[in-house]
């Protein structure tokens, strides 16, 4: 079943086109990898799908409902309740402990303090970093920070997790551990994942891969750029 659908999405930054008409279906429960060279528009696509950015043309539907034309408050509610995001650098709040960082989305959603802390500790444990619950990001390794960010992205039990180069700043083994946790936990929760990466080995964790080039998805099913599929400039 399709959970997220993009049709003819166009987005430019000033004169720079980033997306030139992207259409795709994300199936519920799958891990979809979007790969492609630097600057091809992967992050822009992710931001549009996650309701962080509005496309200039085209439509985005989430569970049958159009979201790209929704007001900021509608989209922000969606981001708080239905979506989780994970970026290359965890973007944790430096002044807060791991547990406080993970509890934050729940507190913002109106959950009580004690309940939020309990949930945060549970999630830190699920991703294997319960031992650093009371450390600030500055007192954690990159891998621990990224797991903490993963816990924060999942604590609201979103239906869709958007991850942009989530292991880009980690060494291979640490990255593998974080990805292993991500796959295991999202599988348990039946969370859909859209994973952006330029590393084939990271795409190896996905169920399906789409490749992008110059602001468009490659047409063939396997996501391959045959020469004629190239959009000329």
């Amino acid at each position, binding site marked *: 079943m399709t959970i997220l659908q993009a049709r003819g999405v166009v987005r430019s930054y000033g004169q720079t086109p980033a997306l030139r008409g992207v259409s795709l279906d994300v199936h519920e429960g799958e891990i979809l990898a979007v790969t492609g*060279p630097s600057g091809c528009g992967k992050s822009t696509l992710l931001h549009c799908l996650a309701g962080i950015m509005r496309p200039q043309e085209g439509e985005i539907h989430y569970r049958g409902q159009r979201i790209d034309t929704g007001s900021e408050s509608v989209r922000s509610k969606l981001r708080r309740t239905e979506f989780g995001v994970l970026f290359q650098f965890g973007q944790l709040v430096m002044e807060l402990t791991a547990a406080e960082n993970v509890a934050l989305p729940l507190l913002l959603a109106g959950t009580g303090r004690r309940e939020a802390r309990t949930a945060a500790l549970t999630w830190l444990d699920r991703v294997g970093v319960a031992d650093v619950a009371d450390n600030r990001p500055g007192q954690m390794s990159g891998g621990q920070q990224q797991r903490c960010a993963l816990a924060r992205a999942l604590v609201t039990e979103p239906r869709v997790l958007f991850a942009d180069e989530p292991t880009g700043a980690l060494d291979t083994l640490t990255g593998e551990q974080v990805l*292993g946790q991500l796959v295991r936990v999202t599988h348990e929760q039946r969370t859909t994942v859209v994973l952006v990466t330029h590393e*084939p*080995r990271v*795409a*190896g964790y996905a169920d399906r891969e789409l490749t992008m080039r110059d602001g468009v998805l490659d047409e063939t099913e*396997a996501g*391959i750029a045959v*020469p*004629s599929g190239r959009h000329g400039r």
Partner: protein
Amino acid sequence: MSASFVLLGLLSSGPKHGYELKRAYDRSLPNAKPLAFGQVYSTIGRLERDGLVERAGQDRDGGPDRVTYELTELGRQTLDEWLGTVEPPAPYVSSVLLAKVVVALLTAEPERAGSYLADQRAAHTTRLRELTRSKHDPTANIGDVITADFTIAHLDADLRWLRTTLDRVAELHQETQP
């Protein structure tokens, strides 16, 4: 070549007969091509001729696969030396892959080369995904994991090379278009 060193390695933990060696070989290198029985015996034969292994005994009712072999002192030294030698950091890209791409580019249209590359890429990606899954299987042991790692690392390199080559072929195609 390396099959004989793998057999020497397997014998380093104690004497084994041919059938056991084959089984152990296939189990330690699950992603490699299984070693045919004939190959086990011809390799053992060569190792015996070179004095690296010797017969340690034979079961009463024994056919040829009931002969037990063990490592000689020379065999142990040879194995040690091999393990201590760094391999030249040669590019991995399997020569067949490279040859096919080169031949495709030389003899066919760029589209043809492009579609070969695309198919090859899809096959590589599928294998990479399978290995990634098997590696994270809770029943995988350390041997399975490092063997999978080895293949994944090389597939990853091949895939990067394929992607770059696809881009180059695309550019080439654009140049040749009016």
